[in-house]
């Protein structure tokens, strides 16, 4: 039995004049296009690895990927007898139908493009959006991927990201945090302020400018409350915040300034009688 490959390739598929070979060519061109797009975008990522921030690198790689894929589709479509100029004519009605059918998809797509070019968030940023807090893992065409601080993968549609209030914790170069430090009334507040400032000064990332401020903020029931306001570089403010407090506490304790215990002074209208011990001696306070 002979196997006629040419004959099989020339077999009509039943859709217009499209043959099996046309379909094969279409598939091959698309596959080659996608493969080239992947190879090129991977190499672009590698080449720009140390030269551009991750966010811009990913944006460039994605734009190149989609340009190559779209080019492959344009080259391949004529094999299916799809005339692009005809598509444009039919596009009016088809676009209307598709537009209504895929309203949310298009909305997410457009929001994704705006997000990529407006840059309210970048890959790696710590954000809070639509009630989700975490770091941005990826900004895709239709959705944004956020890894929450406890490591959970969260996909948020771009339309929701774009229309929500976005809090970007790392957008500015520096951010401030504060501590409330309680000391006893008998301790010297000026000395406590001086020691606290000394510890802050010694930390490299507690910024010199804007200068930190330490002051007596309020008089509590059992203690004096000092407030320390410190600026740190945004990218490592959390490290500074977690390191400094314990250093301040240690420094204060080394110098005899301690954290207060809750106290109550109780006044009695009459003298108190205390009884107890051998012979039930009675004493007055």
């Amino acid at each position, binding site marked *: 039995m002979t196997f006629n490959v040419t004959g099989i390739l020339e077999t009509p598929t039943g859709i217009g004049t499209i043959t099996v070979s046309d379909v094969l060519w279409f598939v091959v061109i698309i596959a080659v296009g996608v493969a080239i797009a992947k190879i090129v975008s991977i190499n672009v990522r590698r080449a720009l690895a140390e030269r551009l921030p991750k966010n811009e690198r990913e944006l460039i790689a994605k734009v190149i990927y989609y340009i190559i894929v779209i080019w492959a589709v344009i080259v391949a479509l004529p094999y299916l007898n799809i005339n692009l100029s005809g598509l444009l004519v039919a596009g009016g009605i088809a676009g209307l139908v598709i537009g209504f059918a895929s309203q949310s998809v298009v909305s997410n797509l457009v929001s994704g493009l705006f997000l990529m070019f407006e840059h309210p968030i970048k890959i790696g940023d710590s954000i809070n959006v639509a009630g989700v807090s975490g770091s941005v893992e990826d900004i895709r065409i239709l959705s944004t991927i956020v890894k929450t601080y406890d490591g959970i993968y969260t996909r948020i549609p771009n339309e929701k990201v774009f229309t929500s209030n976005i809090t970007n914790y790392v957008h500015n170069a520096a951010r401030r945090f504060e501590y409330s430090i309680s000391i006893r009334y008998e301790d010297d507040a000026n000395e406590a302020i001086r020691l606290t400032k000394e510890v802050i000064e010694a930390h*490299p990332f507690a910024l010199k400018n*804007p200068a930190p401020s330490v002051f007596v903020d309020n008089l509590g029931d059992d203690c004096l409350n000092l407030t320390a306001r410190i600026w740190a570089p945004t990218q490592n403010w959390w490290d500074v915040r977690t390191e400094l407090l314990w250093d301040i506490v240690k420094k204060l304790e080394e110098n005899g300034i301690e954290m207060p215990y809750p106290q109550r002074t109780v006044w009695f209208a009459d003298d108190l009688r205390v009884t107890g011990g051998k012979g039930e001696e009675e004493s007055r306070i």
Partner: protein
Amino acid sequence: MFGQYYDTFRCEVGDILVETEQIDGLLTYRRRCEGRAFKRILVSETARIIINPVEPVNLPKEVTDFLQMEFTPIVIEPGAARTIYLKFPVEIGVFLESEKGIEVLDVFGTGTQKYALYGSPTSGVIVRWYRSAVYSEIPQVERFSEGVMELSIQNASHEWVEVSSVVFDSVDMKIYYGDIVATTATMKIVSPVMAETDFIDSPPIPGMARSIELYKARKIPVLDRGYLMEWGLS
């Protein structure tokens, strides 16, 4: 300590120890500086190690490229120019060199570091902050912790200007070493609140060796663009 080394060597200066030695048949790099230690096993056919001063913006970890020097306020009349000398912090870089390129192995330094914000939190930049006195000639410095910056200040504005700080983009920094570590820089004041700063590729003392810069070792392409101080000069 600064210079090139092959195979195994040992450098001990004050509180700094840098060495490579064969341990159990493995070439091992070790560094100790002010109680902090660093160790790596090296696999290299050439084992060429270069130690030189680098841009002082890497310790305790890299958060910025900018360096701010604060000094005693100087009042400059319109059109005047003056060269002064400042001290800047020195960090020491250890590089591995082969035929195919250079790799940063280690960066260390003595003393403490301090950072600051130049400009506003929304659009300012984090800077490595350092305070220096102003000198009219090259001052005495601790070779492995301080360098000398020759700074030419020119007031190109039409007003008297008070200057007490200068900010540089360290990727333009050219560092030289010999008996001291040194760099040459310029500051052109264009208004009472703005100035252009840049480094010059020329040592303040002839005959000094040029350091390998970190950004070159890291193959980061940069344009020598200088820096525009637009958030004030003090």
